């Protein structure tokens, strides 16, 4: 007789999203395009009713980066929501031209209609009692932390936004952040702010912060982990990171984007992309 009982108790069962994600696939007209951060583009699109007010910081949208009639590139690309304007009913994305999808997207002009699926993902969670929020941004990782800053200020919290880049021109311009945000920068070449890694600045803010939120490239995460180990006390403050995985469906169906966590395998598109750093197995 064949044994059909589990041989091991792992977390594969939980990996299947129980939640049904409420997302919309919509036609989004590009209403504004702006160059920013050296080579990147801010693309603002019209969003359907209510979406801009519902979206949570850290959530993303999946954009089809091709014209109708072409099947290549085939899959959608995820982009974090950079800013959401509920009164104008618009969403803004920060797109760095990297490969085929993003280059196509960054080249679209006002008036183009994009096929967008969202909002997707869990988003950051800010504890009700957190007063002081510390953002740690690298490159286009700046995007979800801008929306988080907007929301945090609206809720009356304090925000310090640390950002690192190679040179001054690759930094998010200060004008992009609300004036109440304390904006502290680092550049590799010292052309603005601290000369060195943005994570060098972390220790002095860790005591101040009730929560830390990070999004950036791999090396930044590795350094964040090391600094946290050395400088956090009793695992405080908690650190949430937004991770990046190749995605196909964005809805927990394909299991292509899983992340190993202490709670088992999780779909980073539904159960992520935001995780408590200490929950990640890495």
């Amino acid at each position, binding site marked *: *007789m*064949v*044994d*059909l*009982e*589990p*041989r*091991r108790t*792992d977390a*594969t*069962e939980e*990996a*299947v*999203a*129980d939640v*049904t*994600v*409420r*997302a*919309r*696939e919509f036609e989004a007209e590009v209403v504004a395009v702006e160059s920013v951060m050296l080579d990147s583009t801010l693309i603002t699109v019209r969003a359907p009713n209510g979406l801009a007010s519902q979206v949570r910081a850290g959530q993303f949208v999946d954009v*089809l980066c091709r014209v109708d009639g072409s*099947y*290549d*590139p*085939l*899959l*959608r690309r995820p982009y974090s929501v950079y800013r959401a304007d509920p009164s104008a009913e618009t969403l803004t994305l920060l797109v760095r031209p990297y490969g085929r999808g993003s280059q196509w997207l960054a080249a679209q002009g006002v008036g183009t209609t994009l*096929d967008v*699926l969202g909002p997707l993902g869990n988003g950051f969670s800010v504890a009700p009692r957190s007063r002081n929020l510390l953002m740690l941004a690298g490159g286009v990782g700046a995007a979800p932390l801008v929306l988080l800053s907007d929301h945090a200020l609206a809720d009356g919290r304090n925000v310090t936004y640390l950002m690192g880049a190679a040179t001054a021109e690759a930094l998010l311009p200060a004008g992009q952040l609300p004036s109440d945000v304390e904006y502290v920068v680092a550049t590799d070449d010292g052309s603005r702010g601290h000369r060195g890694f943005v994570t060098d600045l972390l220790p002095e803010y860790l005591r101040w912060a009730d929560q830390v939120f990070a999004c950036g490239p791999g090396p930044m995460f590795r350094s964040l982990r090391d600094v946290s180990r050395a400088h956090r006390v009793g695992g405080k403050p908690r650190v949430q990171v937004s991770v990046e*995985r*190749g*995605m*196909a*469906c*964005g*809805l*927990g*169906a*394909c*299991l*292509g*984007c*899983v*992340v190993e966590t202490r709670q088992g*395998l999780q779909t980073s598109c*539904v159960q992520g992309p935001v995780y408590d750093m200490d929950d990640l197995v890495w």
Partner: protein
Amino acid sequence: MADLSVDLAPNNPRELRLANPVIAASGCFGYGLEYAGVIDVQRLGAFVSKGITPQPRAGNAMPRITETPAGMLNAIGLQNPGLRGFVRKYPKLWETWRVPAIVNISAESVSEFAAMARVLDEQPGVAGIEVNVSCPNVAAGGFCFGWDAGMSADVTRAVRAATTLPVIVKLSPGATDIAEIALAVEEAGADAVSLINTLVGMAIDTRLRRPVLANGTGGLSGPAVKPVAVRMVYQVASVVRVPVIGLGGIVSLDDALEFFMAGASAIQVGTAIFAQPSRVVRLIDELDAWLESEGCASLAEVVGAALPTRPAGPGTATAAEPPSEFDFAAALATR
């Protein structure tokens, strides 16, 4: 409204009657739930669950997916909660749904396949079983069941004996002679066949100088494979009598029509759902409108329309008759 309904198990008293021939493919639609907040899942003809195995599986290491020209590679590695975990959760939910749910099963031995079918036989909310023979047969040194007619037939026979549910056998395009396999599983009692599963492919990460996927190889799907899928459906539909379910790269109405005309009684949409979820539902409406515009009362009128009138012999991919004379004017007519 043309008649879009289809019975995919005409030889089975339990039937597998679908309101329309558009099915969401296995592995591309989770357990139905995942897409329920985005599209109206109940409008589909049916959906096929992610592949279930006897035991829970954690799947492969990451990366598991990568994009290729007009396609994608996946090596999920059948991550799933195992049959028992599956049974605890989904059948009772699906029982409340209108859309028929088909369970896709994989195993590494004939007896495991049979054991799974036996358990599923009693489940509410399960409309049928799709047998994925694109998996390694451990007893045969890991050679894929689906590449061998005898092994494919053995699995089919065992599953057939273990359940009265409609049984669809899903064929692997890795077989040199797909028609031979189809005939073997038909003979062994399959109610229907579905094809194609993914082609085995690989992508290399030239920066890291190793395969992109942690598993090395992966399954190729999406529009890129459509011509291979249409050819195989045409070949299989030319020789079997059971319903053929066609899939592989279907995105648009025209893609779907290619499969119907090649002899498919129903179609499945996989990868394209990832790209444009709403399109799979729109496809049903478009198909209905197209049939109306062509003056067809039912889909059946176009199924196999491109097949040669008499089925060709086993294993041949004989073409429809070429135009008897060089049709200059017709060739010009696109201008």
